[in-house]
């Protein structure tokens, strides 16, 4: 259990949120030109690294807004939280 600082509502407990997977995955501009392997790479393959990961989260039991989070998956330390469309404040 950890606290998440929702960019809209403020600090709330993790149980109010739902994780939405890896962030900043760009949809290919011309999907019809991709091979099956390339399309599968875009659709299914995720990094799932141990360490700093960029993720999407949804405050599902609060304001129901999506936002991005930079989280260290090894110790659940949240490095930054930022709104959709904004650039990550840390690399």
């Amino acid at each position, binding site marked *: 259990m950890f606290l998440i600082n929702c960019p*809209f*509502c*403020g600090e*709330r*407990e993790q149980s*109010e949120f739902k994780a939405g997977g890896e962030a900043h995955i760009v949809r290919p501009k011309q999907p019809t030109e991709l091979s099956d392997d390339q399309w599968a790479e875009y659709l299914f393959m995720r990094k799932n690294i141990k360490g700093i990961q960029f993720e999407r989260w949804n405050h599902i039991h609060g*304001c129901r*807004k999506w936002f991005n989070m930079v989280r260290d998956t090894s110790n659940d330390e949240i490095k930054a939280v930022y709104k959709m469309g904004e650039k990550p404040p840390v690399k």
Partner: protein
Amino acid sequence: MLNYSNVIENDKSYPGLQMREIKPVMKLIIRGKKRQFLSAVGKSLNLLLPNEANTSSRSDQLTALWLSPDEWMIFSNEILKSDYNNYDVEKLLNKNICKTNLGAVTDVTDQFVLINLKGDKIFDLFETGSPFNFNDFKSKKGLVTQTILTKIDIIVHNQDINDVNLFVRRSFSDHLFSWMNDSASRL
């Protein structure tokens, strides 16, 4: 309000806590992002929508609760006629907001149940089943939060000191109220 049976048959009272359903009360959800939307709602209802997160605003007849950056709940301060499901406020907003493509209005009068809680044990009750930190919330009049209570989504409006409005979806309200009674009896 449609002719639903009462979720809460009787008012309940415990040492430091009274709970009762308030009905019929008009409840609307309004959504919009543009600046013109905010000013159109303000002019239509003579009520400024709260811009700041987790706050509310109030006029003589209506209260507006902040739910998210582009979503608010509006409810009537007074009890309305029980055989009436046509609201002038909704009609006015439909005309000034929906038909001008500024935002959306949804009537949630029958979707949400309003439970009023009074007494100094309200937050002791909430703390038995909610992950939200009510320490700062309980001393500030007018604050609003959406959170979970015994895994059920609720909207809490701190109307006054020791006077709280709780909104819950009708399908969960029976279970929530029985849980609140059970928990209140052990405080």
